[in-house]
């Protein structure tokens, strides 16, 4: 049985749909990322599961039990808030012990579990600190310890890494996933950062305007985006627009190319995604799945350089040039480009 089953969940705010008939299952011990931009409904979904909002329609079941009529304090899950929401008038100890006190856990056991939780997030010895005397990273850990100390089977995380600076974010991300594995709890993490979602989650759910547009393992979502939105959102793929050529491909006049994907285009589809690193420069290339263009700009990115290539038909292509292939061609260089048929991903919408 799934741990959490969401079916037909809808929520409107003043006539605007924040969530539209959303279905989603979360398995026990799974790390699920809810990925979307602002207004995608990802935070609304989290607040509905936590019980801070009431749905207009649909059901939320946890281990078979309907959660919708259950008030937030009685729901068997915990949440880590984006701003951490640490109680400023309580010490680290007081913050982490708060939930155990509400459950009437006896003093001795409470102290032991608080110490264990603080140890787990690497904050042993900070119990008597007040929140305003902690760094941002330490506050994040206290919030995590406070949410985990009740040993929930489901933990909701609202942008858990969002307030950390870049170098801390990567390390904390690894720690977050280690904690998830160690506790065996299911994590649902809301994020707008596709790298974070891809790096940490077992499955990524991409939300757009209150709808679930794609759900799958990070690699599948990254390599095979289902729609233009997902392709654009997940790290800057080229979205190539065209008209069906009647032979299972697309004519792409802005690119000056004919696209022949390995798999047939779904009916009505008029675009393919093509990742920058799948485009190769090959002098003399011609025929389907090739294009010509002129390098307009070059951006060094460390292990590769990103070329902006203006195609003959006027479209701008993003092409990755690997560092081991030598220095990238300077702006003004004419390039013959080629890609594998399998690199083209037909987009449904």
């Amino acid at each position: 049985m799934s741990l959490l089953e969401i079916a037909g969940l809808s929520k409107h705010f003043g006539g605007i749909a924040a969530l539209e008939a959303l279905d989603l299952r979360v398995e026990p011990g799974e790390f699920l990322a809810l990925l979307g931009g602002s207004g995608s409904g990802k935070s609304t979904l989290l607040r509905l599961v936590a019980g801070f909002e009431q749905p207009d329609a649909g059901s939320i079941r946890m281990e078979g039990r309907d959660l919708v009529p259950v008030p937030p304090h009685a729901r068997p899950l915990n949440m880590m808030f984006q701003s951490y929401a640490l109680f400023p008038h309580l010490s680290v100890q007081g913050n982490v012990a708060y939930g155990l006190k509400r459950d009437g856990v006896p003093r001795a056991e409470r102290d032991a579990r608080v110490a264990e939780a603080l140890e787990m997030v690497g904050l042993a010895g900070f119990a008597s600190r007040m929140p305003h005397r902690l760094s941002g990273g330490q506050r994040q850990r206290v919030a995590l310890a406070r949410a985990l100390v009740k040993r929930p089977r489901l933990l909701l995380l609202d942008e858990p890494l969002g307030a950390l600076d870049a170098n801390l974010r990567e390390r904390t991300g690894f720690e977050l996933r280690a904690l998830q594995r160690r506790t065996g709890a299911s994590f649902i993490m809301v994020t707008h950062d596709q790298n974070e979602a891809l790096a940490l989650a077992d499955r990524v759910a991409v939300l757009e305007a209150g709808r679930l547009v794609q759900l799958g393992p990070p690699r599948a979502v990254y390599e095979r985006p289902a729609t233009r939105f997902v392709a654009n959102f997940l790290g800057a793929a080229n979205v190539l627009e065209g008209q069906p050529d009647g032979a299972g491909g697309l004519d792409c006049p802005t690119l000056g190319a004919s696209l022949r994907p390995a798999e047939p285009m779904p009916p009505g589809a008029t675009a393919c995604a093509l990742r920058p690193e799948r485009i190769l420069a090959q002098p003399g290339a011609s025929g389907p799945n090739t294009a010509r263009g002129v390098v307009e700009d070059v951006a060094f990115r460390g292990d590769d350089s990103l070329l902006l290539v203006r195609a003959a038909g006027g479209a701008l292509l993003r092409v990755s040039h690997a560092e081991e292939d030598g220095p990238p061609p300077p702006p003004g260089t004419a390039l013959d480009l080629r890609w594998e048929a399998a690199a083209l991903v037909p987009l449904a919408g």
Partner: protein
Amino acid sequence: MRRIPLLVPALWLLGFVALPLLVVLALAISQPGDGVPPFVLPYSAATGWQPNWEPLGLLVQDDYYFSAFLQSLRVAGGTAALCLLLGFPMALGITRATPRRRPLLLMAVLLPFWTGFLPRIGAWTGILRDEGWINGLLRGLGWIDAPLPLLYSDTAMFLGMVHAYLPFAVLPLYASLSRLDRTLEDAAADLGARPATVFLTVTLPLAAPGAVAAFLLVFIPAAGEYVIPELLGPPEALLVGRVLWQEFFQNRDWPVAAALAVALLLVLILPIRLFQRLEARQ
């Protein structure tokens, strides 16, 4: 040139706070006299320095003045406590109202400030006196034969005091409650706290500095209040303000009146400092 902006408040403080205070201090150690004005300053070129410590000493020795201070503190403390009790749910209600209704409710709190002070107190007289609205209504219903002694009682005095000072409590409470991060209450609920527990363990402690500020902001001016106890209170409610008035206008003993004013200021310095420290911390 840069000092000119600072010069204006400095001059204002000097002319309208420091100098009058010096005059009051000088008065408090003057000899009472029969002239106009009825005192003799402690220094003159002819007699030299001749301070009179009797008025200040009187305040310590005479129970009459000491009990006036106790009464004042009791009335001010009671008023502040009542204003806090009433003002807290009001302020909480305003912060939780829809953004559209909030300014309307805040205006309703401030509205009494824009009507005259005396007409408002006068209105209470009209409502509470023997031939007033309440007694008239109760007699009309046949529930009572003789009018209830409502006016000139502690009840009437506290009604008037709370009515006059409530906005001083609501505003700082509103300020501190509207600063409160609502996600803290969500977090408490998420950790298993019922709504009443959320209120007691999160909302109330975080609003405490605002509550102390509200208490002091009512307490400090209420301690020196004269008009309301005079017009609504019982004759035995001899507060500092009333005693001061008597000394000044009826006994024409300006030095004792000035000594009372100085003593009241000294008594209030502690809560005033407390309030200032609280404000500085926020």
